[in-house]
């Protein structure tokens, strides 16, 4: 999957720069050589789409978003600024966009490919309804789906236990 990449700048960075007197920030710089990830598909804006997807963040917050045909969960996360890692940018070479789906909706999806399952094997907190966010494509059947983003950290200190491996 190749996507053009454009540079994305965020306002909060300027606030931090202004506060630091001793550190002289350079001009806003862009280092991406490839252009930026067009959020979702070209020409699709926030709020577009007939479908609804509910994201649940690791902190337990629910975020409801609109989605169009073919949007992946990763596309949506990026369009709506929801934190979902994508180390390999959707090329089935990592498991950082791991999400957990409702069982009902999971049953409606096609079986993951061998390649996706190989990557899911390495995901933390894998469940029976886990998928890679970059591989789930929106369609009518999945309208109203809830996807939960598991915590990326192992949270060892919270209860002192280690994650159970499948």
């Amino acid at each position, binding site marked *: 999957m190749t996507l053009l*990449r454009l*540079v994305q*700048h965020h306002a*909060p*960075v300027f*606030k*931090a*720069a202004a*506060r*630091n*007197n*001793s*550190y002289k*920030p*350079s001009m*806003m*710089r*862009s*280092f*991406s*050589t*490839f252009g930026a990830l067009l959020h979702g598909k070209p020409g699709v804006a926030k709020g577009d789409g007939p479908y609804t997807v509910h994201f649940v963040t690791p902190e337990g917050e629910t975020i409801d978003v609109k989605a169009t045909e073919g949007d992946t969960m990763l596309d949506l996360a990026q369009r709506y600024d929801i934190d979902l*890692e994508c*180390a*390999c*940018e959707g*090329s*089935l*070479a*990592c*498991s*950082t966009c791991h999400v957990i789906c409702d069982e009902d909706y999971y049953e409606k999806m096609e079986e993951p490919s*061998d*390649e996706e*399952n*190989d*990557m899911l*094997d*390495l*995901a*933390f907190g*894998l469940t029976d309804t886990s998928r890679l966010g970059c591989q789930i494509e929106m369609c009518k059947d999945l309208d109203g789906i809830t996807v939960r983003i598991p915590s*990326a*950290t*192992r949270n*060892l*200190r919270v209860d002192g236990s280690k994650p159970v*491996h*499948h």
Partner: protein
Amino acid sequence: MLKRTFATATRSRPFRLAVVGSGPAGFYTCHRLLKEHDNTQIDMFDALPVPHGLVRYGVAPDHPEVKNVMTTFDKVAEDPRFRFIGNVSVGTPTSVLQVADLKAHYDALLFTYGASEDRHLGIPNEDAYGSTSARTFVGWYNGLPRDQDLQLPLQDTDTAVVIGQGNVALDVARILLTPIDDLRKTDITEAALEALSKSKIKNVHVVGRRGPLQASFTTKELREQLSLPNVRFEADQQWIQQQIAAHEDAINKQRPLKRLMGLLAKGRKDNTGDKSWHLKFLRSPVEILADNGNVSGIRYEMNELQGESFDKQRAVGTGQFEDQACGLVLRSIGYKSMPMPGVPFDAKRGLVPNAYGKILQSPDAAQDDTLPGMYTAGWLKRGPTGVIVSTMSDAYDTADTILTDLKNESPMLPDDPQRSDDIVPLIQQRGVQPVSYRDWKKIEAAEFAHGVSIGKPREKFTSVPDMLHVLQPN
């Protein structure tokens, strides 16, 4: 004697962090920290002028998608609160900076310099011509400057033996057996392509001490290996099936293992080919056989597995030996971290002792006996295993530890008169030219341009002088 005060970040005074090592561990820790703590200034050092650690020098050239993570790192580098300071070595006898220098200029230090060395077998003739580590071979074909003078008898033998059964072992086996025209389209160095194009190697044996259930490679890599064109797969399938059957219940409880064993048992479809790769088990190398200083073979002691559950089984020597003729031996038994003066080190485990990323006073220290302002992440923290997602998660854990300490106003490094000074003038005074991220992007642009002209995604500079030359004004 002046009373020392401990520095903490305040509204007007930023939290200043120095990061030693610019691979995924360093970058992901910074990514999290910058997101969650506004008033932060980070300087990240690397001994090389080029960043990204093993993403650049470890990931195989035919796995470019794994390297997409560099885009995440570019975004971290775009943050004005972050500076990359390359070409600056820290903590060795010849380094321009020592840990004490960093302690003077920063509130806290984060060590993410990974594992740059490799483990040795400790057997006779390990240094014979034709015997080296997988790490060196990988460094060589990925353009790591220190490994560029590697010489191997690729033209003198048709058989290579790789000791170890992890993903690095499969990487090197795959590179030795991939059709040269496929490698030509990658960012493998021209020098490696030239040498591999003349290689006579047709058979690669990947050898482990124990059995298939203890192999550390993962399903994706095994699947890739079994799909290599024109490469037969050879293994004692009957024995493999026996092992799987003997531990079926335990295997079925672990999804990744179940899938891996399923794939291994299934083997390769239409299993023919002029070349071959072999999985050999229950063999511990005891001697490399050499003829006039050149590798001619390897001697194994045969093992048996002792123990009930497969994850606790040990290899025990039987006193029986087997010789195998070969011309190349690559040991792939693990990377190893080096100690740095000023940083506690657990020599036995090969890592920096820590509690959730906060460095402990010593390897035997209690979990709460930590050093203020000293942190670690990545392979240096937990040992040299795991893929990028493991390091990402680990780095976020360390970032959370730092964030908790900042929230609780835990003591950081003792205050110092030089604390607010920029360290770059000091580096320049000592005769070293630091390389910024913008400079790195110029080097990278030159690598892209050079690559495109010869049909590759990039052609890496393989020496530091060549890298720095790009930055000289015309």
